[in-house]
């Protein structure tokens, strides 16, 4: 695992990402590129109509058409052009939505696949990437990449049109044609050089934007602390500084892009100017009609579109390098390009029904064994809480094992390592004597369930937060609620189980959040229950009731096996076995009575509680 995340991955070329996106839904791509190219190329017909009209008017040159035929041709051209445009636009929207959905799906699937406590990528400074920054990649970088595919199609349509235009013009007057194209080629070259600069400014502006998004996320996550400290204005002053930095980066970024645009804009007028300059002699001599001039002038715009779109594409393509790298960072060690690997995105069809694993004999726990387990916190060498080392213990069926120790002794790290939330460095875990190789997929319901120190709820109803997708008719929701001592709270709420908990459960009290999380664990009917300091927001009475109800189920013959982190007496007294952790190592283990006699650390922990009670 550790090797995998550190593995040097060779990134794909940008076009390889784009190619995989195109192949994801090729029919939308074909419906975009085909009709759009023809739509754009009908501009050529307009030039021919102009020429025939002015030739007819002046009676010079050929072909000539009478005015009503001209009108007929013009209307026909419009009908075809519009019809094809509509087809192409609808295909484009589908292509974009499917591509973006695919990339978002792949990144989220990858994040959820990684060990839960290491799911977000670690940045250069060794810290996890802020959620705001991940969101900005999910939102913006996916869009940039998807839109580049469309930018390619724009170039192809313009290219086809330019080639046809060139052939028609060269047949009329090669000299004027070449004279008109040469300044345009020079302009392409300049905009190409400029787009190299664009990449640099793009990176700066993206970084500045992330700073702003990250700061907004922090601000709104810490509203209460800000209010209490009366710090609203001070926070906003800092926010203004960060915003100013982004403005400066943004203006530069946009200016370079606009310079590229301005070059191709001026190309239209300069193109017409050169036709005027070069055709002057030919017209003076009568070799070039007004109709020819009208045709040439009408071809300038589609031709400059080619330059403009190529410039635009080059700029976007370069910026895509940045986007792709940011997405790969989130994919953390997955095979390069996995972010655009093809998977169903279920936009047109329903997603498959949720799998439900019924508990069977094969899930039954007889004995859990941990041998020589080491799990280090990455980039935390200077920390006291550096991890856990060489941990070994056993939990037989039905046992109540408590892990205790001071803050930073590694209690939480130990639980997370066993659950596969953190990658382990050494050691093994055995389930009924069988070594578990893939902890994070194995240590899940119905084998194991877990409640963390600070449980997270999602913006949804209490019912959905408890079930998290379990089919209600196949689980015992009532038992879970009762065991979690949540039934009275629910009865007091107007909407009961249908109560919306608000963002992160903020509408519930701390105790209610914790007991909802406990109910979420109990409803999963797991063989091994892992509690990380469940009682931190519960009063003594409620905690006692919860343990009583949980262990009362012993009479039904399935008393759950429990692994509990706690330093509270109520839990310590219930323990069949206590593991004392000190600086990441088990320094003693036994029953409470034994430990109180022989372990100085246990005595200190126990006395700490006594001391507080006076």
């Amino acid at each position, binding site marked *: 695992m550790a090797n995998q995340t550190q593995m040097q991955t060779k990134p794909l070329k940008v076009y390889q990402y784009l190619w995989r996106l195109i192949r994801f839904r090729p029919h939308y791509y074909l419906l975009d590129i085909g009709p759009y190219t023809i739509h754009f190329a009908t501009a050529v017909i307009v030039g021919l109509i102009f020429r025939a009209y002015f030739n007819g008017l002046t009676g010079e040159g050929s072909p000539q058409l009478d005015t009503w035929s001209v009108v007929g041709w013009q209307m026909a051209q419009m009908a075809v052009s519009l019809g094809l445009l509509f087809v192409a636009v609808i295909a484009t929207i589908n292509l974009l939505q499917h591509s973006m959905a695919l990339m978002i799906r792949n990144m989220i699937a990858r994040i959820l696949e990684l060990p839960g406590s290491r799911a977000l990528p670690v940045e250069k400074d060794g810290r996890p990437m802020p959620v705001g920054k991940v969101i900005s990649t999910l939102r913006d970088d996916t869009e940039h990449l998807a839109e580049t595919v469309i930018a390619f199609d724009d170039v192809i349509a313009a290219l086809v049109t330019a080639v046809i235009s060139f052939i028609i013009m060269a047949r009329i007057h090669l000299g004027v044609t070449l004279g008109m194209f040469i300044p345009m080629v020079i302009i392409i070259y300049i905009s190409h050089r400029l787009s190299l600069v664009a990449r640099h400014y793009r990176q700066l502006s993206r970084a500045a934007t992330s700073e702003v998004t990250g700061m907004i996320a922090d601000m709104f996550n810490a509203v*209460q602390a800000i*209010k209490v400290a*009366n710090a609203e204005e001070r926070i906003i002053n800092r926010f203004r500084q960060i915003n100013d930095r982004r403005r400066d980066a943004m203006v530069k970024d946009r200016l370079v892009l606009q310079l590229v645009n301005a070059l191709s804009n001026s190309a239209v007028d300069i193109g017409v100017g050169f036709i*005027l300059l070069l055709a002057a002699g030919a017209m003076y001599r009568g070799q070039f009609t007004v109709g020819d001039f009208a045709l040439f002038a009408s071809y300038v715009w589609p031709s400059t579109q080619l330059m403009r779109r190529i410039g635009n594409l080059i700029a976007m393509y370069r910026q895509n390098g940045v986007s792709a790298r940011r997405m790969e960072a989130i994919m953390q060690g997955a095979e390069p390009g996995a972010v655009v690997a093809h998977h169903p995105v279920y936009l047109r069809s329903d997603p498959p029904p949720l799998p439900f694993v019924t508990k069977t004999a094969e899930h039954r726990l007889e004995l859990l064994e941990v041998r020589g387990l080491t799990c280090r916190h990455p980039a935390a060498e200077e920390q006291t809480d550096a991890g856990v080392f060489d941990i070994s213990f056993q939990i037989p069926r039905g046992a109540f094992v408590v892990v205790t120790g001071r803050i930073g002794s590694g209690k939480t790290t130990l639980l997370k390592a066993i659950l596969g939330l953190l990658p382990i460095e050494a050691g093994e875990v055995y389930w009924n004597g069988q070594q578990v190789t893939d902890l994070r997929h194995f240590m899940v319901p119905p084998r194991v369930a877990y409640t963390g120190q600070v449980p997270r709820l999602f913006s949804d109803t209490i019912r959905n937060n408890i079930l998290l997708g379990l089919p209600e008719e196949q689980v015992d929701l009532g038992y879970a609620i009762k065991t979690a001592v949540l039934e009275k709270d629910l009865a007091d709420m107007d909407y009961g189980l249908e109560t919306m908990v608000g963002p992160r459960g903020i509408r519930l009290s701390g105790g209610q959040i914790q007991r909802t999380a406990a109910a979420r664990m109990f409803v999963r009917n797991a063989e091994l229950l892992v509690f990380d300091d469940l009682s931190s927001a519960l009063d003594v009475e409620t905690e006692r009731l919860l343990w009583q109800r949980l262990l009362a189920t012993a009479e039904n013959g399935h008393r759950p096996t429990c692994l509990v982190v706690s330093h509270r007496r109520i839990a310590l007294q219930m323990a069949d076995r206590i593991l004392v952790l000190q600086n990441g190592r088990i320094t003693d283990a036994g029953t409470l009575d034994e430990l109180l006699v022989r372990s100085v650390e246990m005595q200190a922990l126990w006395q700490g509680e006594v001391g507080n009670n006076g």
Partner: protein
Amino acid sequence: MNTKKVGYRDYLNLLITYLRPQAGRVFLLAVLLLGGIGLQLVNPQLVRRFLDTAENGRSLTQLTQTAILFISIAILAQILQLLGTYLGEHIAWTATNNLRADLALHCLRLNMSFHKTHKPGELIERVDGDINSLSNFFSQLVIQLGTNLLLVIGVMGLLWLVDWRVGATISLLFLMGLFLLNRINRHLVPRWQAVRQIQSDLFGYLEEWLSGTEEIQTNGAKAFIMRQLYNLLRQRWRRTQSAMYLNLLVMGLPIFIPTLAYVAAYLWGEVLFRSSVLTVGGIYLIFYYVDLVKSPLWVIQRQVQDLQQAAASMNRIVALLAEQPDVDEGQGEMVPSGPLAVQFDHVSFYYADDKETRVLEDIHFTLLPGRVLGLLGRTGSGKTTLTRLLFRFYDPTSGVIRLGDGNGRFTNLRHFTQSSLRQRIGMVTQEVELFHASVRDNLTLFDPTIDDQHILAALNELGMTTWLANLPDGLDTRLEAGHNLSAGEAQLLALARVFLADPGLVILDEASSRLDPATEALIERAIDRLLVGRTAIIIAHRLGTVQRADEIMILGDGRILEYGDRLQLATNPNSRFAQLLRTGLETTYG
């Protein structure tokens, strides 16, 4: 959040408010853009002269001179436009940055009840996503839409000069186009609004999920979350598609209208040429001018689309700005210095949206300066709400809360300014909220007036000097909860924050739970120091934490069940407190 209809007046007001400080630049921008338009209008006249000269076979030199003049003017026009872009972007970002900061400040000042119903991810989308659309509104829309409209008007005027019949027909066609665009867009706005809404929902949920990866894994809920994601993505696709179907009409018009204009030019051109009213150059000029406004019409079309998105964004921003805190700013008195007295005078409280359940019922007590009140009660008994009322996160439904000075003078809480109130009351909660910022900024909450010596003294007081010494950049080290900071250290930092703020009343909300006894002892010592010369209200579930209290209050279902001197209650065997002490001791001693 109500979504009331926002009219053009609101756009205008917002525009004026944020552009006024930059009036000089705006003026310069207008000059640049008008100059550019003028040059663009002049150039086609040169083409007309060229064609007529060529047709009459007069002077080759004159033809060449005209061509060169044409090219020079074209380049000059582009330079003006580039300068305009730079200035425009700068003005737009300055304006929207100010709006962004104002909106963020407004949101921060809204009540906690607002923040309980709005996800941080949703507010990110408002304060960033929506305002980015507005930045488009300022730079692209106002400038480009304005210049393009002026260009179109200029061209129409010149077409009337060429021939009034041609001018009339083509003006009418373009007016019809703009009218239709406007009509269609009225139906399009709500659809784009729906797209933005699902967008903000999608990223709101993603934010929650990304913060809850541990829960998702250990509850085996990955498939469930993926299913939720698919549903959101599908809705986004459907709503985008629905908006796009209508949008096709908006895209078709800029092709349809110029084509009709061409047809008019063909027919009038034939008539006017045959009757010798116009030369070939004059007729070509008509086509040139139609082409000149064809592209602006494209731009106008695109900008109007953006305007719809900006309108949708602006709707939400104006609605958000219209949200008023249900607690007023206070009446301007300053909270006295020194330890504060607290008086609850028959205070009751229930939430405005739930009048059935009384959260607090007839709370009545007085806490003298320097005294420590221990607050006990089960979860949901109203302990937390009682303390939040002191910060005026909410106002009591009935009854009055007062703060008093050392001389027994009491003043209604609502008479104090909010800021002086929050300066004089400090709070430590179990959930410590940290910023991705330096240790210094996290301690002072970005207050540059607090010097390092004070900070170091506070850290020293709390026994955190060693911790600080181990940080790579000292006070400048960036903090990361759970990464270079344990829960206990975060608690100590929160205490240091309060130390630095030097309040007269301290509220400790479950401050010492979830810590191991050794760390807790460290924090207990810190609290002892903090409480010297301060009034305090301590909430705890555990009796141990309450031992330092002078007075005890037990709450149940929002009422005071028991209130009195701690020692008296402890020695009275019939008191609930004594009973609790016994069960508590039973718990610990078995």
